[in-house]
């Protein structure tokens, strides 16, 4: 049997060949970037060239880039290490943001999953003092794009600061305007086809920052620990490839996703697609088929050789209802019947064909149920 069709790119993406090659080169050449001898200097050069590539993808200065172990660490650093008195986050944020500060306040979203700007404005006007707002650029479950520039205008007017979790946005939309709007921005390498185990927090010059991990003085004393050089090199290569080619790739993937959604609607006209009327990135589709629990759908698709998920990968070990769909006002029976299909750089036409063939069987089963 051929390998299963992989349509779970928002959980993780296969490593791009350019990224894997860069990681492999760094693995082989070795060296600790903090050592002063030539092996160390070579490692330092690799590190700094990756930093420039990641910065360039977001239109940022290289000095803004702090490499981390991933977006979870970047989110936690932004929310905890920034000593804000008050933290306001959207209701549909990733758990890494929601859980980082126990005392965070929640800003609601509308039925399409877009932040309620009037509510945010009210919340910002009510509290005094030093406030950090955290809003993701793209939702991991629905692909809905948040109005970051509008959010930023409100945040700026209130004298607050803005953190944007852009883990699912890189390579799927233009990042430079998002970074221009933000004080802090989180990125994940493995969501964009770089290696896992590496991410970045971009920090605007002059924005407050307290390091969490201590001892060693790396990353300009902002994050101790020997740098994950192969991971960072791979991240840089993926960023460089995307900086040059993201538009073409995103357009190709979006056409596949649109064909997939059209096919799904053809076999099951009753499906509800989350955030379908809002701006979405072109790779994600969150599809609810009432009457058949999501776990059953996912298992049936898996048996047919198609890998998708019922929610985000982190929480998918434990089947709980999606906080994202609940925040959008979805009733439990609908939210519990939603699967996430996410495409990416290596997705091909026949992957969509195989998905649609499997989905057709699923839709027939739902009708019978």
């Amino acid at each position, binding site marked *: 049997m051929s390998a299963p069709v992989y349509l779970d790119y928002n959980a993780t993406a296969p490593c791009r060949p350019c990224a894997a090659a860069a990681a492999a080169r760094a693995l082989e050449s070795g060296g*600790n970037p903090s050592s002063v001898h030539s092996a160390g200097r070579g490692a330092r050069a690799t590190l700094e060239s990756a930093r420039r590539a990641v910065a360039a993808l977001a239109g940022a200065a290289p000095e803004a880039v702090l490499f981390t172990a991933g977006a979870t660490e970047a989110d936690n650093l932004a929310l905890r290490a920034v000593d804000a008195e008050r933290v306001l986050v959207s209701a549909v944020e990733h758990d*890494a943001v929601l859980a980082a500060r126990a005392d965070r306040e929640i800003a609601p979203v509308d039925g399409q999953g877009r932040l309620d700007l009037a509510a945010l404005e009210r919340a910002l006007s009510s509290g005094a003092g030093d406030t950090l707002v955290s809003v993701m650029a793209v939702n991991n479950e629905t692909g809905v794009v948040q109005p970051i520039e509008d959010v930023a205008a409100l945040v700026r007017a209130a004298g607050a600061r803005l953190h944007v979790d852009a883990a699912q946005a890189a390579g799927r939309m233009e990042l430079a305007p998002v970074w221009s709007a933000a004080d802090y921005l989180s990125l994940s390498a493995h969501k964009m086809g770089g290696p896992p185990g590496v991410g970045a927090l971009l920090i605007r010059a002059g924005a407050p920052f307290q390091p969490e991990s201590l001892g060693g003085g790396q990353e300009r004393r902002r994050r101790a620990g020997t740098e994950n050089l192969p991971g960072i090199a791979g991240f840089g290569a993926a960023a460089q490839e995307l900086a040059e080619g993201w538009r073409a790739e995103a357009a190709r993937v979006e056409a596949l996703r649109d064909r997939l959604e059209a096919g799904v609607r053809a076999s099951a006209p009753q499906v509800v697609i989350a955030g379908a009327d809002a701006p979405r990135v072109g790779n994600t589709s969150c599809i609810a088929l009432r009457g058949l629990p999501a776990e059953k759908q996912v298992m049936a698709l898996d048996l047919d050789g198609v890998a998708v998920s019922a929610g985000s990968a982190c929480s998918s070990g434990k089947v709980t209802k999606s906080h994202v769909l609940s925040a959008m006002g979805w009733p439990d029976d609908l939210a519990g019947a939603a699967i996430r299909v996410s495409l990416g750089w290596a997705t091909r036409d026949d992957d969509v064909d195989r998905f649609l063939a499997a989905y057709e069987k699923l839709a027939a089963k739902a009708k019978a149920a």
Partner: protein
Amino acid sequence: MSIRRDHETTNRPAQPIYLDYQATTPTDPRVVDAMTPWFFERFGNPHSAEHKYGWDAAEAVDQARDAVAAEIGGKGRDILFTSGATESNNLAIKGAGRRRREAEGRDKIVTVASEHACVLESAARLEREGFEVVRLPIGRDGLVDLDAVEEALDERTALISVMAVNNEIGVIQPLGEIGKRARAAGAWFHTDAAQGFGKIPLDVDEMAIDLMSVSGHKIYGPKGVGALYMRRKKPKVQVEALMDGGGQEKGVRSGTLPTPLVVGLGAAARIAGREREREAERLKGLRDRLLERLEAEIDGLFLNGSREARIAGNLNVTIPGLEGQELMAALDGIAVSSGSACSSGAPGASHVLQALGLEAGKVAASIRLGLGRFTTQEEVETASDRLIETVGRLRSRRGAA
């Protein structure tokens, strides 16, 4: 495309001669081979519970846990993965300290003056949060005094953190003796084993170790990954998480686990376990030869730290009458360091050598020579020649001036 490697090649650093194995080690080609498939066809997210890609990755992660645990007499379920030993140390010290103060009111941390900066700074952070921190001195041999350990431990002590092997001078602390005393006082015992894991025999039960930090890139595994052993029974060790999110690693360490790196760490641990004894024997021969030549041919050179309680791959020597920077700049064709890599970018006296009692004001060059898996007899001879020749040249220049 393929990045499959030619099995004939190794990752042995060629030029200059690499004698800085305590800063970092080249990734073993066998480790690279083990990692490669996990970037490509087996790239799944180990936390995806709904399809084969995820299950495949999750199983590989669990096998890596078993491999790391096997090297220290632990169980796979007691191992959690981090981004490296720095994170493991931060998590162990701050996480356990905060947890125990909250739960039991224990608000004292005991550590040693020669620990790695990330241990000392984690302890200092707790000190700013109101903990009492005791930093024990070391003797001329680099070892902590057991009576002082016993005296420092009391019913208020949350944690004692003592490294297995010092990163600069290579000395091995008496872990079993420390563990016994910690257990008696009810203090949890953490050891930073970044430089000891895979190099010396370690057994968490025999040594009564409750928390142990491990680094990938110090044992010929990849950078960007480490592990923390955390005892789950007798005592049940719990730490407060530093990062929250998806609740991975039983809620202690959120974030997607990097499967290729974790697999690489597991493979590195397995190789180290298989080859440890034979490799230590080989390195000891090379190291003794190196020291013998340096002591015979460089006047006044002396070894820092215990001669006996030392890992096979480390020498740290002081050469009187030369400046450290002067020696480092003149040494050609050998990559060595004057201290730990983290701080070697910035000049400043080593806190470890100061703790040994070396006088800061005295003109002397101290260098760390780290030998490892790919070091050859020939390299040791060439490096000895170069070092002896360079010191001679610098000394005669000083004498002439």
